[in-house]
């Protein structure tokens, strides 16, 4: 009796191994990205060049880093519309500090501090005051960008003091042929994949997204965790902001404009469920990759970049439809 029960369990687990992979949205999105890459390699001479791949990987790293933060927020049942503004705020803060002659490390800490403060404010208003995440982060999107304009007086910054070369090297350089932003992405992704799976914090984020009142009733520190989630999202935006300044070699106040859309799209395409409780680090990264491949392919194929939004929008709706279909089955 026990034996047959156990073997039945083993069997059902065995079967689910294959069907689980097939059922994973990440798998199909990854497949789509790989197919797109293969097609581009065949159709164009320009895709598989070292230079283009370098650009693609670097560009996608910024969105992917932030998509990991966004996926965490979405998994907890929230949303963060202020990430694009956190990018420009962090960028302006590091720019202003370094221009004034401060060392890189101090300026970077200040930039991350500014971003974390944005996240803290979001988190407190959402988790403690109880305001809806959409409204709070929408307000913060406007507030933080305005703050960046005030701080920089809307002037472009391109002189970064004594540590100028460090900043530009960090964002624009490479290590063992890999763009530095990609290395940062890999580090953050590895840490967060571990945190999602193996820490109580990770479990609690998903529990809150799955059923917030259940999380509350079982004594999970829901407020503290929600605050930390928004702070983490802002942190990823701060990191991306610093790297983007180094890559571009200048700070302009339109940096990160409407970037929240690409980031949310990447998270959702990667399987983050806007009603909470689902999402993965791998999904966030692969979602960001697919978006960048689409963007790049339109350019390489000579299709008007005006079509970009249509393609990305199409994919968002496609994956959500796919999800609905799975739910019906």
């Amino acid at each position, binding site marked *: 009796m026990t034996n047959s*029960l156990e073997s039945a*369990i083993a069997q059902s*687990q065995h079967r689910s191994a294959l069907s689980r992979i097939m059922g994973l949205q990440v798998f199909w999105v990854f497949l789509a990205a790989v197919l797109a890459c293969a097609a581009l390699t065949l159709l164009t001479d320009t895709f598989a060049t070292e230079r283009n791949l370098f650009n693609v990987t670097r560009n996608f790293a910024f969105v992917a880093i932030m998509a990991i933060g966004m996926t965490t927020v979405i998994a907890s049942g929230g949303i963060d519309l202020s990430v694009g503004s956190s990018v420009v705020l962090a960028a302006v803060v590091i720019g202003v500090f370094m221009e004034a002659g401060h060392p890189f490390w101090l300026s970077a800490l200040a930039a991350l501090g500014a971003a974390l403060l944005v996240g803290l404010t979001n988190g407190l208003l959402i988790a403690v005051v109880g305001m809806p995440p959409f409204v709070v982060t929408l307000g913060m999107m406007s507030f933080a960008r305005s703050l960046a304009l005030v701080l920089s007086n809307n002037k472009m910054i391109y002189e970064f003091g004594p540590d100028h070369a460090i900043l530009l090297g960090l964002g624009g350089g490479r290590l063992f042929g890999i763009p530095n932003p990609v290395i940062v992405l890999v580090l953050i992704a590895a840490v967060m994949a571990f945190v999602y799976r*193996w*820490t*109580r914090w*990770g*479990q*609690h984020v*998903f*529990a809150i*997204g*799955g*059923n917030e*009142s*259940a*999380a*509350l*009733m*079982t*004594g*999970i520190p829901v407020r503290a965790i929600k605050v930390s989630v928004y702070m983490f999202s802002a942190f990823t935006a701060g990191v991306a902001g610093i790297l983007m300044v180094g890559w571009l070699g200048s700070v302009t106040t339109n940096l990160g404009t409407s970037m929240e859309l690409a980031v949310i799209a990447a998270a959702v395409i990667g399987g983050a469920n806007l009603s909470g*409780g*689902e999402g993965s680090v791998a999904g966030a990264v692969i979602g960001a990759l697919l978006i960048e491949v689409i963007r790049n392919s339109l350019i390489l194929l000579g299709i008007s970049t005006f079509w970009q939004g249509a393609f990305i929008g199409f994919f968002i709706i496609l994956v959500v439809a796919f999800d609905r279909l799975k739910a019906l089955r």
Partner: protein
Amino acid sequence: MSRLRLTGISKHFGAIQALSDVSLDLAEGQVLGLMGDNGAGKSTLVKIIAGNFAPTHGTIALDGRPCTFHRPRDAQREGIEVVYQDLALCDNLTAASNVFLGRELTRRLGPLRIVDYAAMRQRSAAIFATLKSETRPRDLVRRMSGGQRQAVAIARTLVAEPKVVLMDEPTAAISVRQVAEVLDLIRRLRDRGIAVLLISHRMPDVFAVCDRIAVLRRGALVADMATAATSPEEVTGLITGAIETRFGRAA
């Protein structure tokens, strides 16, 4: 001695008086049925005992010792466990993760403490076995039947050796066979010496397992009597208000 003693519990939500001056005693190994119409204050009382709300007035004592709960965790630490009306399960997590929700088992990994899924699966499998439930620890709650979900919620209360288990409408939304299972489980809890507070609308269930029946009406306690000394008709009258109160008469 009473295991759980409530004295003069009142609760206001703004202008709403959800509970007024409720006093109840619950002994070791006793099952107390708490009945009352919708909005009578039953869930509010459970949430106060479980540390979700602080009472506006009144005291809670466990084994004669006064307790103040600021958080559900405080009540859990004192041995009070709850099966909530909506079961409070996370559909997106596995049965084992739900059983240990909020008190995940961990193990050391170098300087880190990580979630010990293997231990959680093993222990929840053992609990499901004692409940004679076919629930599998690895399965997602989303894919479970009503009875299995119930088993997960009940298994959660057995993780720690509880003194008091509060059950808010555990038999509200399940099949007849599953109701019998849940009632069996309540008897098993009682035989272990656990004090059970059972909230239910279902008269047959209450009469089947409860030693005593208390009735709340619009936040006030109108009866607290031995099951043997009453009848479903009388309880119905007390719930609706056709009978004013049982107090002042021999119980």
